[in-house]
């Protein structure tokens, strides 16, 4: 699946390197060094943004580590993609036709919002 080039460009500002990682019929957006909101430990890590439905969620953000943040999160999405282990917390994003950046922000907001 191809994503709009202008949305890809905007997303690049959030990480040190962005590339596509196709696997299992899904094109994940592989974000190296994704910057995380203030209060997160680490402050950056690698991530996979899955803009399409997966594992019962409309979209998902997988992270290379279980990030510590202000609020405890329910890390329920351990998986292996691209020969690497990834972690995701239970966070449901329901946005109508979001841009990739809007989607990423909605997932990152899981570190800044209690519920």
């Amino acid at each position, binding site marked *: 699946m191809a994503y709009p080039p202008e949305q890809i460009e905007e997303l690049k*500002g*959030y990480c040190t390197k962005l590339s596509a990682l196709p696997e299992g019929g899904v094109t994940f957006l592989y974000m190296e060094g994704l*910057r*995380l*909101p*203030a*209060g997160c430990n680490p402050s950056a890590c690698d991530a996979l943004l899955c803009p399409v439905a997966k594992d019962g*969620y409309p979209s998902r953000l997988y992270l290379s580590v279980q990030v510590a943040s*202000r609020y405890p*999160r*329910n890390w329920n999405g351990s998986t292996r993609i691209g020969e690497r282990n990834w972690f995701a*917390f*239970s*966070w*449901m*994003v*329901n*946005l109508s036709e*979001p841009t990739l950046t*809007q989607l990423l*922000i*909605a*997932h*990152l*907001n*899981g*570190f*800044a*919002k*209690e*519920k």
Partner: protein
Amino acid sequence: METEKNVEVEIDIFEFAGRGEEVPHATTYRVRIDGETVKVDTPHPTGELLLSKVGKRPCAFELIEEFVHHDNDVVEPNEEVNLRKHGLKGFITAHKEIVTIFINGDPYSIERGKRTVAQILSKVNQTPEGYILMEEKGGPPLPLPPDVPVEICGCEIFHSQAQSGGSS
């Protein structure tokens, strides 16, 4: 009448003010701002340009003219200053109490200091219940926790986006 021949190359307005002399035309003016000497290539710089010479912006700071007779005048950002004005010895800057922040590209006035996310979002008629507030701080806009005060110094850049996520 002054000709190109008698135009000074570089002059220090502080020295002329101290001697009570008229400041001649020059190609470059040495100006003191907060005690720091900067060079200005025009006799009529704007307040914003002078602030930028010391790395400051009108969204957080104001510029004040200082005269030898101890009068001080605030210079607006778009106001042109006459560097050849008699008695002008330099400038000082002061942190504004009411500063300007930018939300979704538009400027808004707000009191300096710690402000809640709700106070900031209220500038654009939004609430933390309905919107995520993001700050652009040395990188891309990232979400701010709604229950942690934000330190406002002026010139901060914010964005907002509709709330859309929740723990499932």
